[in-house]
């Protein structure tokens, strides 16, 4: 299932509901995938660094001032889908990974961060 080097095929595009997120397990690391619009997918570490749990994929996806974001379900901190920056606290950010859409397949770059309990 592996696509180009460094990328892993994780799911079909319709597996991710538009306007929401899902979680993939890549090399034992949890990667949150978000689909703010039908044609875009973003990947962030699933771990909310403030709440300390693997939950970001279950947050509400939307925008703040036009910037696509996900609000953590724990304490509602918002994270920018493009940069991983926390929009409520400049000192906090989550790692991101590059996503490629190949036909109806979603490929995600192997995460460069360590998983919590991998």
């Amino acid at each position, binding site marked *: 299932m592996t696509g180009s080097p460094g990328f892993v095929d*994780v*799911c079909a595009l319709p*597996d*991710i*509901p*538009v*306007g*929401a997120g*899902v*979680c*993939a*397990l*890549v090399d*034992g690391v*949890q990667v949150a*995938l978000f689909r*703010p*619009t039908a044609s875009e997918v973003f990947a962030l570490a699933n*771990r909310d660094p*403030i*709440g*300390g*749990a*693997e*939950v970001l994929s*279950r*947050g*509400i*996806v*939307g*925008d*703040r*001032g*036009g910037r*696509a*974001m996900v*609000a953590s*379900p*724990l*304490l*509602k*901190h*918002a994270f920018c889908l493009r940069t991983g920056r926390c*929009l*409520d*606290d400049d000192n906090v950010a989550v790692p991101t990974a590059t996503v490629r859409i190949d036909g109806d397949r979603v490929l995600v770059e192997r995460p460069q961060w360590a*998983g*919590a*309990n*991998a």
Partner: protein
Amino acid sequence: MVGHQFLAALAERSPADRWTVTVFAEEPRLAYDRVHLSSLFAGKTPADLAMGQIEEYRAAGYDVRVGERVVQVDREARVVVTAGGESVPWDRLVLATGSSPFVPNVPGKDLEGVLVYRTIEDLEAIRARASEAQVGVVIGGGLLGLEAAGALRNLGLETHVVELAQRLMCLQVDDAGGRVLSRRIQELGIGVHTGKQTRELLADGPRVGGLAFADGGVLPCDMVVFSAGIRPRDELARAAGLEIGPRGGVVIDDHGRTSDPDVFAIGECASHRGRVYGLVAPGYRMAEAALLALEGAPGAGFAGADGSTKLKLLGVDVASFGDAFADEGGVRTVSLTSDTRGVYRKLVVSADGARLVGGVLVGDASDYDTLLSLARSRAALSGDPEALLGRAAGTGAAAHGPAALPDEAIICSCHNVTKGAIVAATRDGAETVSAIKKCTKAGTGCGSCVTQMGEIMLVELRARGAAPVNHLCEHFPHSRQELFHLVRVRGHKSFDALIAEHGRGAGCEICKPAVASILASVWNEYVLEKAHLPLQDTNDRFLANMQRDGTYSVVPRVAGGEITPRQLIALGEVAERYHLYTKITGGQRVDLFGARRDELPAIWRDLIAAGFESGHAYGKALRTVKSCVGSTWCRYGVQDSVGLAIRLENRYKGLRAPHKIKGGVSGCARECAEAQGKDFGLIATDRGYNLYVCGNGGMRPAHAKLLAQDLTEDQAIQYLDRFLMFYVRTAGRLERTATWLDKLDGGMDYLRRVVVDDSLGIAAELEADMARIVETYRCEWRVTLEDPARLAGFRSFVNSDTPDPSVTRVTVRGQLLPEPRPARNAEAQ
């Protein structure tokens, strides 16, 4: 505790190779939380009280010697000598030896059954003794004495407190406060004997058999606990020739340094400017000052603490702050004593009445933080000091409204943000809740203050005449009420249609769930329909309540709190099968914690097979209708409260609303179902039911108000249909019924006209709307399980069936819990 605080801060802030640290602990365990020692008699274990774990100390590189006592400090040789004869060298020495209980030298103090209250071992001795005792006496009516009395009472003993002074808690409260406190404690069944000097402990064979007082009185008992104050453990320092304070304790300067600059002392063993502190908060500040000095970067140091404190003893609030006893010359006092509520409040103000300088609060200290900050800020009072006395009495809506709060009031307790800071941020251009969060950090801790924060912002914006201020969020230039009408009148059935016509952008965590709730209230479609799923908060999306570790809790409906033995067994079986933690909720049902999302469908398949249905604990929806047992069993009951509660819960279950809704039905005026603390409550009378509305417990408790009297069940349901639907239509986002009523022009009179007299002519419409909701109710879990395609959404991973590996468990008190949070610095009390 102070020693642990010091070590934890040292590990966090000092490079690992800077110091070689050896820790000696005399007790057979590491530091533990003595403030909550009495909780050992309320089901906690010593492990629950532990503050540091041996692994953490070892990870920090500390050489930890538990159960090893130091018997000598040799300052010449720069070593400490242990009881085992070992010499351990030091360059810097920190004494955090604490204190020991003071036992006055009265005859009979060495009898069997005479104990002290200080360590876990002391409490184990008390527990052992109590198992064969009937009457226990605590000598000493201070903070620890009352804690000890509570412990004896929890152990089932007839309990008495004996105090030499004329009042209890004489360091914290004045005579009048002491009287109210005594009465509250007597109401708990504890005997209070003040102004009593114990002359002798009487013997009954080898054991204690009673107290003889100097005034000739005798109090029979078979166990005694001394809690007559503490003495600093300064014996090592004394023997080493360090300077000792006038009332004992190792003399330290503002940086925790003793008379030997290489030796520090912190906490209860230290004497700072002639004072020994028996509270943990000043000890923590000494630890901080000593750490900075040790690291060669001394800060401002510890300049003393004023003893301001807030405690909850035997369930009674006791607080004092600032110049509580009006010791400064020229000050004046105002006070209030309410024997009916068991409350005493005294405030000390400056001679001109313009500033608050101190106070004593007994029975209700809910506004302690606000008053303390008012006193510390030395700000001018905005009105008569008398006005502050009544605040906790909850007189009217204005007393609770954000406009009535002083600028110094702490709104966000997690980050210590005042109302003034929020107002200032709003003035500086932060005109949304998220902007205020970002610049003040308020609301980013536990989040419980976010609503209040928003109200403060709105009041400020309105005061400036800034419009528009009631927009739901940046995506909709409308209030929730306006959006509700747009959905109804224009017939919008999806978020996308609504935002396309009336909003902009992609939505956010505020408007998406709010619109999902409106759509559910109006159309009652299944919440996980493809179009609605991305709108739902995680709780609604997974039909369960997310907990801090990302797992969920499951609460099946137990209407009215009535449950069959078979159903109880089934709940237990499901909990065991899926390794869930179980706890009884305040709403008379059972919460099952720790389910991974991929387990939820199987858990619910089993629960539905056992006859359960969704409890909607996850939704802003009707939760429970609590009941007392009523006339079916109770000698006092006058109506069948259980039957009505079940009927109401089944009628309104699944109703989505701006906030959660709770109900209660009491079978007589004794009100055991606490119906007046609910959004709607019915209290039985000889002639039917009285209907109360708009109460709630929680962060800002509100008493429900009487809407109508002596109703039949059918009448009550008719009024409730109207009331609930009117609330659902017109309330703001996350606005509970009490807040909604506060803002309703005309208040309760207006609401009564709408609901009872139908002054708006909408009663029939409201009833019809409710009837449709009732008819279209479906158990959301049943619907979910019917469609296998929906179950895919519950997998932990889109590309794997591996269970979420981040979920780990520890066993505590025989149940599985998440791993404890990383250590946080505990605050005093």
